[in-house]
């Protein structure tokens, strides 16, 4: 290790220092935890800004394990923004539940460090360690309301399925190491291309098993069907801002690894993993959308909807493998950014309602009835985020779908695009149903919700809403960022 290696992980070092500071400062604070919130927020903004400033760098550190390129920068900024929005949404929510503790911020920061390193890793070992850092922080966050049965159940389920997935993936990685004799993505890629016979003798079954095991492990993390069972329970049981964070952060990190690892380490098996992800995507889209149709709990509905969105993203990954072209991957990145804002926004509005009426609001459709009259701002914002999730033009969700589906069509998989658009037509039904309850129904249960929304929550929701609309109308800058991320990936 050289001293200059530290620059590569400078954004994470900032977060690490801040996380430790949060834990150290917290005992000296009384009821008011604004100080730790400020530390965490400053660290995230600083880390995001620093990452942005490091754009254009091309560094490799720690013996090729970690890199700092535009790909890593892209995701580090995304994670910093997602975590900052989550934190802004959390403070009042935690106060309302009597669990406003400093550890919360420290755990979020640790999870972000893990996610950052996942996006920056170019080595199976480094990637695995980063993944575990993220995962363990997540398990604790899910159980943050430890006196509640559901929160404990959520954490335990997350932990068990997560460890199971890790074990499967580790087995895959060990097989990869056995075949390739290396853990570095690029070295593995070169070794396996030779081993499996790029001359056309077919692909060795053992290598394929290794590839599929790694794929399955990651499919758990992005909650692809049939490895999605944990998702609804975990999201429902976890504190709402934490569920919001789970649905965007770890998912985006896992997608980052899927793209990097499979493009760089397994290019010779692209056709095979392409098919694998296509099959997985169809299952995921169908399961996510069909199960979301019958949910009466909005938080659970959003969990199934996040499974469905993973399906659209996996369709893009599948098209990437099938066509041997990174173009669909570009769409996936755009979709991830769009999804981050709209999904955080949707969960944020729910968290706001829960904060305002912890007893009356139980996330059921019924308790949303007539919201449009009582709190028009919350209703309008939630409608915007849901319409974006549904993929209505003018919103970020449409741009994401447009890029991904366009790339799928370009990869000559028109039938897959047809399945995807039909599934998103199904999805419109359950998103519109929520809007219908909020705006068209009369309230069944009266509870006062303070408006206008104020404080951190207002800032977070406003930022998400603005980003949702801006990406929907002028996505070109995002595209440029994605292109430069992909360009550095292939250097």
């Amino acid at each position, binding site marked *: 290790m050289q001293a200059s290696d530290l620059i590569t992980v400078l954004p994470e070092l900032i977060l690490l220092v801040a996380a430790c500071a949060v834990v150290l400062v917290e005992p000296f604070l009384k009821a008011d935890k604004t100080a730790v919130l400020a530390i965490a927020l400053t660290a995230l903004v600083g880390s995001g800004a620093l990452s942005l400033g490091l754009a254009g760098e091309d560094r490799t550190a720690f013996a090729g394990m970690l890199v700092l390129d535009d790909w890593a920068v892209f995701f580090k900024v995304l994670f910093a923004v997602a975590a900052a929005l989550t934190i802004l949404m959390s403070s009042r929510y935690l106060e309302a539940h009597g669990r406003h503790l400093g550890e919360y911020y420290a755990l979020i920061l640790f999870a972000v460090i893990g996610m950052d390193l996942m996006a920056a890793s170019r080595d199976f070992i480094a990637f695995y360690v980063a993944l575990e850092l993220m995962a363990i922080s997540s398990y604790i966050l899910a159980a943050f309301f430890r006196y509640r049965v559901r929160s404990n159940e959520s954490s335990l389920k997350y932990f068990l399925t997560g460890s199971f997935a890790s074990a499967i993936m580790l087995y895959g990685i060990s097989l990869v190491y056995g075949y390739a004799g290396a853990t570095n993505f690029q070295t593995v890629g070169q070794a396996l291309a030779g081993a499996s016979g790029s001359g056309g003798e077919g692909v060795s079954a053992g290598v394929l098993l290794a590839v599929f095991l790694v794929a399955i492990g990651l499919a758990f993390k992005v909650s692809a069907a049939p490895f999605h069972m944990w998702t609804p329970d975990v999201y429902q049981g976890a504190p709402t801002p934490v569920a919001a964070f789970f649905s965007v952060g770890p998912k985006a990190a896992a997608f980052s690894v899927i793209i990097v690892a499979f493009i760089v380490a397994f290019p010779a098996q692209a056709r095979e993993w392409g098919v694998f992800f296509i099959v997985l995507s169809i299952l995921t889209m169908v399961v996510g959308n069909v199960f979301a149709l019958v949910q009466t709990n909005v938080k659970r509905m959003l969990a199934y909807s996040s499974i469905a969105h993973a399906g659209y993203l996996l369709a893009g990954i599948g098209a990437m493998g099938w066509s041997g072209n990174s173009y669909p991957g570009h769409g996936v990145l755009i979709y991830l950014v769009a999804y981050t804002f709209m999904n955080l926004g949707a969960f944020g509005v729910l968290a706001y309602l829960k904060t305002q009426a912890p007893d009356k609001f139980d996330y059921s459709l019924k308790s949303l009835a007539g919201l449009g009259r009582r709190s028009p701002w919350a209703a309008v914002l939630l409608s915007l985020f849901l*319409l974006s999730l549904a993929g*209505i*033009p*003018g919103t970020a969700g*449409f741009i994401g779908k*447009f*890029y991904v*589906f*366009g790339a799928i*069509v*370009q990869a000559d998989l*028109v039938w897959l*695009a*047809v399945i995807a*658009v*039909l599934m*998103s*037509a199904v999805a*419109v*039904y359950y998103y*519109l*149903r929520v809007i*219908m309850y909020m*705006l*068209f129904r009369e309230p069944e249960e009266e509870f006062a919700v303070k408006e206008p929304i104020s404080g951190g929550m207002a800032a977070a929701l406003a930022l998400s809403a603005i980003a949702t609309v801006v990406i929907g109308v*002028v*996505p*070109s800058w995002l*595209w*440029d960022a994605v*292109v430069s991320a992909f360009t550095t990936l292939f250097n």
Partner: protein
Amino acid sequence: MEFDFATQLGFRGLTILTFLPTAGAVVMLVFMRRRPSAYKATALVTTILTLILAIYLATQFQSDTAAYQFQENESWIASLGISYHLGVDGISLLLILLTTLLSVVAIAGSWNSIKDRGLAFFISLLVLETGMLGVFVSMDLFLFYVFWEIQLIPMYFIIGLWGGARRVYAAIKFFLFTFAGSVLMLVAILAVVWWYASNGGPLTFDILTLQQVGFPGATAAWAFAAFFIAFAIKVPMFPVHTWLPDAHTEAPTAGSVILAGVLLKMGVYGMIRFCIGFFPEMAVKAITPVLILSVVAVVYGAAMSLVQPDMKRLVAYSSVSHMGFVTAGLFVFNQQGIEGSILQMVSHGILTGALFMMVGFFYDRTHTRMIADYGGMAKPMPVAAAFFSLFVLGSLGLPGLSGFVGEFLILVGVFQYAQVFAVLASIGIVLGAAYLLWMYQRTMFQPANEKWLSLKDLSAREIITLVPLVGMAVWIGIYPHTFLNLLHAPAQNIMMQVQPYLAEHSNSLLRLASSLFGGF
């Protein structure tokens, strides 16, 4: 003729036209949230200004060419070859005039009937107008799709928030039907764009460029099908019309006027631009099935109207019948058929809009739409009965009013192509006379219902709302030349596009006939 259509105006006429209603909506939202009279006035003034601008554009329009005019072209999303490209030809100009006129009427007509959440209602109508105008001015597929989808949202709210008893069901059904069709269209859009990009062309969503491509066999066949289904749902053609009676009936009056008046026309407009413009060969191959479906719609819609006990539902089903004429006239590909079809769209927009308006005025007073509840309305409301008679007669095709001109031209066109379809379609006209006159008789004459004797006749505001519609119906009925003049060049253009395939098609029909009848 060298004429630069981009600079003929000297200002961005189409952009201003399209976004003026939204600008008005923003002003209302920001400055006059709690003042109903102020925001209503602003909404009305905004739509009137938009109408005036549309009329001004029409006066500047060169009607002797099929070229797209007032064009504006800016790069928008360069990575995908998407541009902000606007332009109009005679067809879109006529539909823009219809849209802007009906928007004024819709707002004036719902002045007092919307009591609850008025601000949101008028904002929805204005945003809807932007969406509709955007569809007609877009020269870029992406832009077209954006507007096409965006106008669903305000319409969904208009039906769902201010509609009748079954409004929620009707709103969702309307949304899902249209959305399911349009996502398939999205795939078709992507497919034609990528086909062109991977076969030597640039990556572009420009409609003019793509119209020149000439897509081959399989791609064309299923892309045509996807576009066609999306538009057929919107028109709506038999058998995908089932959302229409619910949506039209449950929507508030202004919603029904806009739905019947403009939204249905977007389907036919899309067929002209894309089904025929992109895939002329497939369009020719589809002639016979389209004619059969159209004639079924004509007769079925009329027969369904005959048995409706609900006035609004009756008018709704009559739309299915009248739109059947429109698609039939379009797909015979001769001058009379095409021009009649487009004129019939305008005429249907005016007359059906007016009929919905009248039903709305009656409903505001009686709170029932059931024909059986009415009777003898001519006694307390003679002025209303007079207006109503005019629209009923226009709608059933009385010469001298607009309905006649369109239907006559369509029948002439269809007759030239295949007599049997013209004969069958004319059954629809006979039935049309039957259901409309019968409804008129049962509601206006017949023994007077005691309850209604004290009703007030139309107010000055209501009369002023109806007068422009009467004026248009008479104008088109007596001197259609003004409007047909705009359509000659675009109709010629459509015929030129399909000409090469039409000859082949009629040859194959002849061959089929001669093989069936043993040759001549």
